């Protein structure tokens, strides 16, 4: 179980097709289809109520889909009872059996499948999570972090084809959570099992997962590597859920080979063609706050940079590593800028006029009327 060479044996690809689940009039999962490659660390990311936990429970067998099917390495498990699926879950509340000690908890799955000599496998699993000395303790005597690792050991010891994790780090404090994120990643690489991790914490998903699927209202809005999702979101929901974005209304005004020219309030901005997911005339131009640099109006800005002038700093918050600026543009829209504190002392106090500039390569373009578009760019509420 330890070495990654067994990954071809222990991992299996999981395919969900047309998965749908309704609760009364509420459509929790809407025609969801995705293939999770074997041996990968896959994250389902989304806000609460988006259907990610329901999807996970359907894969575990704890909920029955209304439509669609689930295949594990070719085997149809859509309506199989949970105890017949080669799938194990790490629950959000850990769900360790309080009346059994740690050893028996971890051995539970093995015993139910008829394994006689469980000692070596159980101790192996406890070694993997580095807690062999706790074998005879009761779950009530363990700390949160220890319980979480025992829950993981209890699932992994059965060598499932897919391991499901339902927001397992939610109850841990920040430092412990970061530690466990690295631990989980290490274990997954070592063991080679396919991990399906459900979370609402975008930082967690991005640090741990190979592939992330962002879910909203029962559907997957975008799927890809964390960096791709972050730098090139295709919907406003994804743009605003992963980190922050500044989104500007614009109109397609021309082509320059590899780039498009978009007119934003009279300013001509360049957007790389590969980062535009819209065919419409109306394009939402997006740029991440950390990519923007502020310049005093009289400072030099290179020719090919995208720039917007006439901004006024509303607020400058010192946050140690960076300074967070809120800049109000002439058309009453507020932009957020994260500026790394390379020097000492504040550069732009509140009230100063600045020019906002960034590299065209860091721009992305969204369909203004894309699915998930209720996230409008932040404008002054007094305007309407």
């Amino acid at each position, binding site marked *: 179980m330890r070495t990654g060479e067994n990954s071809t044996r222990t991992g299996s690809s999981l395919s969900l097709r047309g998965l749908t689940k309704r609760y009364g009039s509420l459509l929790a999962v809407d025609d969801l*289809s995705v293939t999770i490659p074997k041996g990968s660390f896959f994250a389902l990311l989304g806000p609460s109520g988006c259907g990610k936990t329901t999807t996970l429970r359907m894969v575990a067998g704890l909920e*029955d889909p209304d*439509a669609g099917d689930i295949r594990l390495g070719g085997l149809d498990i*859509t*309506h199989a009872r949970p105890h017949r699926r080669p799938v194990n879950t790490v629950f959000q509340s850990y769900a360790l059996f309080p009346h059994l000690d740690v050893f028996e908890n971890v051995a539970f799955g093995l015993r139910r499948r008829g394994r006689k000599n469980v000692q070596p496998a159980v101790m192996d699993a406890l070694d993997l999570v580095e807690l062999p000395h706790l074998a005879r303790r009761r779950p009530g005597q363990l700390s949160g972090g220890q319980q979480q690792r025992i829950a993981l050991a209890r699932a992994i010891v059965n060598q499932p084809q897919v391991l499901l994790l339902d927001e397992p780090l939610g109850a841990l404090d920040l430092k412990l959570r970061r530690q466990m994120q690295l631990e989980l990643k290490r274990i997954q690489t070592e063991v080679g099992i396919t991990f399906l991790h459900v979370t609402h914490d975008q930082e967690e998903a991005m640090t741990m997962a190979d592939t992330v699927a962002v879910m909203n209202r029962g559907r997957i809005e975008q*799927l*890809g590597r964390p960096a*791709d999702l972050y730098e090139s979101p*295709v919907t406003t929901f994804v743009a605003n859920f992963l980190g922050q974005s500044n989104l500007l209304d614009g109109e397609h005004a021309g082509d320059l080979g590899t780039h498009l020219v978009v007119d934003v309030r009279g300013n001509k901005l360049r957007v790389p063609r590969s980062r535009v997911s819209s065919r419409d005339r109306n394009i939402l131009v997006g740029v991440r706050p950390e990519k923007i640099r502020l310049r005093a109006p009289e400072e030099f800005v290179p020719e090919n940079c995208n720039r917007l002038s006439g901004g006024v700093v509303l607020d400058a918050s010192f946050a140690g590593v960076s300074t967070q600026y809120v800049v109000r543009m002439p058309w009453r829209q507020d932009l957020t800028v994260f500026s790394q504190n390379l020097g000492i002392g504040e550069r732009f106090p509140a009230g100063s006029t600045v020019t906002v500039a960034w590299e065209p390569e860091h721009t992305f373009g969204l369909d203004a009327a894309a699915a998930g578009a209720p996230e409008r760019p932040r404008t002054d509420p007094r305007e309407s």
Partner: protein
Amino acid sequence: MSITSVSRVNPTRPGGNRRARPARSEARRRHVPYLLLLPGLLWLGVFFVVPIVTLLGTSTQTRVPGGEIGEFTQTLRLANYWDALSRYQEHFGRSVLYAGVATLAALIIGYPLAYMIAFRAGRWRNVLLVLVIAPFFCSFILRTYAWRQILADEGTVVRTLKWMHLMPEGASLTATSFAVVCGLTYNFLPFMTLPVYASLERIDHRLLEAGYDLYGGPWTVLRRVTFPLSMPGVVAGTLLTFIPAAGDFVNAGLLGTTRTQMIGNVIESRFVDLNDYATAACLSFLMMAVILALVLVYIRRTGTEELV
């Protein structure tokens, strides 16, 4: 890297629309609850519901003239109820009075006790709770009888009271309504204390601290914060005390006389000694109705929704 956007895929779905599990196990599941319920409900049905319904029928019967004692026929005579009520109204009143006074006394004694256990007991809390219910480990008949001995004329208590001139010479504590109420209070004290404790224990201490922070003295906080918040427990305790106390006859039997008889005593004697089943049945339902009416009025006045 290209962006993969998966929003809507309509593949072919081989057998993918299969719905629920196979029908056979589903049907079996549906019958399970009824099987589980059957034995218990049957027992209650035969030995509780049927007797009560039968009693209802008995309440409208009349004696067969010239027949044996205990021989009744069904005549649907509703006037039985009126007869029973008018003949024993004094007993009804007395039952309500005794039970009411006992409940009040239990509240006065039990509330501070519960308060102390909830707020001042710390580690000894569980032990104290055990001590509160411990008297139940000894037969309640025995304990009630012990009270009769304790309050007896020759007993230490009465002799001391007379020596201190707190009691007049010829007076006696036994066979009085005072003794009956004492017994009722004593026997039902834990029924008042425990629900009140449960309610007090649940109060968020920060609410009390807020009361003190807003310039409330100890009495004010008790009156305006603690007591209102403990109302569900008080209501539950009151009901759990009053209802059985009103129907009790052991205390009146052991500690009282014919002058202090409660409605429970009347029902018992009518039934067992005199075989007057019809009257006993009427009195039973009348008693339940009176208690129910009082309880409803009480609940309406205190206005609490949750009783536990």
